[in-house]
């Protein structure tokens, strides 16, 4: 293993997502990789970042990596602990969230997400968790970030169930509907995978903008179920810096639960 390769795919994903949070203020956190990414961003590119947890916490300062979305460590020392009504009504629907993180079992080229079922709704082959707060984040958070590993099972031409709207059938339709219906969310903006970083082009379709160290375009194409667009000026994601790795390994996930 060379010095440059001395990091895991998960660490690369965390670092890439954290950098995308530069300048953001209020972030709706998910557990796992998003949580580490958000905490890393707060210590690096986004020192003013406020952590919001759907369980009803604003301004969390978790003293350890939370084990769930409602871990007691997110409450102790937080700015505010509220009812979930208040969190969803006033913070999220009220328009105070700049970035929300979503996961996906299936995602399509326009960033529409399924976390409900694989197969028919009434006779699912796989029953997934469902929306939780995801459809609310997709509609109300100003931007949506996705962190997930690539696989042809997940990056699909057609999702089985639309749990959380992305760019719908494309940018034109999405912008019109979001404007007409007064959504506060402008839709998905970043997808960070184990292979690269994607944004959405002017048609609303996912576009590979940066390839992680060690990843190849072939690997990208093998794990996406449609002809993925690639930026003409495709960048190479800078590897994690020593400082970024130190923060992850010493402070954020010392047990390596999510990063090894």
């Amino acid at each position, binding site marked *: 293993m060379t010095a440059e390769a001395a990091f895991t795919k998960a660490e690369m994903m965390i670092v890439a997502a954290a950098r995308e949070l530069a300048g953001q203020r209020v972030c709706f956190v998910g557990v796992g990789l998003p949580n580490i990414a958000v905490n890393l961003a707060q210590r690096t590119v986004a020192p003013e970042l406020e952590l919001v947890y759907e369980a009803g916490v604003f301004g969390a300062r978790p003293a350890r990596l939370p084990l769930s*979305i409602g871990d007691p460590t997110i409450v102790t020392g937080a700015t505010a602990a509220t009812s979930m009504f208040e969190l969803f009504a006033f913070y999220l629907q009220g328009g105070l969230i700049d970035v929300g993180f979503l996961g996906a079992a299936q995602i399509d080229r326009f960033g529409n997400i399924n976390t409900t079922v694989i197969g028919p709704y009434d006779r699912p082959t796989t*029953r997934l968790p469902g929306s939780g707060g995801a459809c609310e984040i997709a509609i109300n958070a100003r931007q949506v970030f996705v962190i997930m590993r690539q696989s042809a099972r997940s990056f699909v031409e057609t999702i089985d169930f639309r749990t959380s709207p992305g760019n719908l059938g494309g940018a034109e339709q999405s912008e019109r509907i979001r404007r007409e219906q007064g959504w506060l969310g402008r839709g998905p903006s970043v997808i960070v995978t184990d292979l690269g970083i994607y944004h959405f082009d002017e048609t609303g379709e996912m576009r590979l903008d940066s390839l992680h160290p060690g990843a190849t375009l072939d690997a990208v194409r093998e794990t996406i179920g449609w002809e993925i667009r690639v930026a003409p000026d495709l960048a190479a994601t800078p590897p994690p810096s020593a400082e970024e790795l130190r923060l992850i390994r010493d402070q954020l996930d010392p047990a390596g639960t999510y990063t090894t």
Partner: protein
Amino acid sequence: MSRGRAVAGGGVPDTGRVTTSKLASMADAVRELVRDGDTVAIEGFTHLISFAAGHEIIRQGRRDLTLARMTPDLIYDQMVAAGVARKLIFSWLGNPGVGGLGAIRRRVEGDPPRLELEEYSHFGMVARYTAGAAKLPFFPIRSYFETDLPKANPLIRPIESPYGDGVVYAVPPLRPDVTIVHAQRASAGGDTQVWGLLGCQKEAAFAAERVIVVVEEVVDEAVVRADPNRTILPGLIVDAVVVEPWGAHPSYVQGAYDRDNRFYLDWDPISRDEDATQAWLREWVLGVSGRAEYLDKLGAERLASLRPSAAAPSGSVDYGEYR
């Protein structure tokens, strides 16, 4: 109005004033207040989940329950495995931070499914309880646009603003027959205080016909009255107060104990296997007489390991005497 009456045989009248004690054993509370066919909401978002009540419902063999909860969690996986439920009303189905709920999945992924699902989003569930508590015929929210959820659940319906500025979605009120919440403390009369995550317990309790509060400790009414802003439920709407320390294990109680994450991890392989699930229920639920025996089996050492590492006091504020 039948709300907030003490269960029969439940404790003795308070001295000092007229507040009736609603103290009851878990067995009595469940026997009198949870009935076959009821819609039951055991609420608490990751925090304060009354596993103790869920296990007692299993032991008493309730049937045909509709179980409502934002996040069904391990407790509903266990209850479904035990056969008490015919339906779930929920917004997120999983073992938080770990994975899936095997017992529920097996019954949903079967053909035909053996468990009915009625599905919302988190805010949809909160809004349903809020409408139930406020006796509103519906609650409007900005969720569900351009999703398949209204198709999957026809109770999610569009509603037009009377101000000509478009459409939002409505969810119907949810009015459980029984809501069960765990709390840090309550008076014997049922005045209940919680700190940490508040979830939707207040809304779920006000929406319910009957309410059971399970607490870490009963405190003198004066403790509650010293900090009225901390009260989430008045005894008025509480039918039984059950004292069951550690009753939320393996979930947690802010300031008292942490989530037993080992339990959540261990549940994953158990719930993937029906036989293992049933064996677990026989050993840990049906095979114990109640919470005390369950805690004995867990062992003092395990419980002790869940205590917070140090105290984090809120500090005291002054309400002032005004005479």
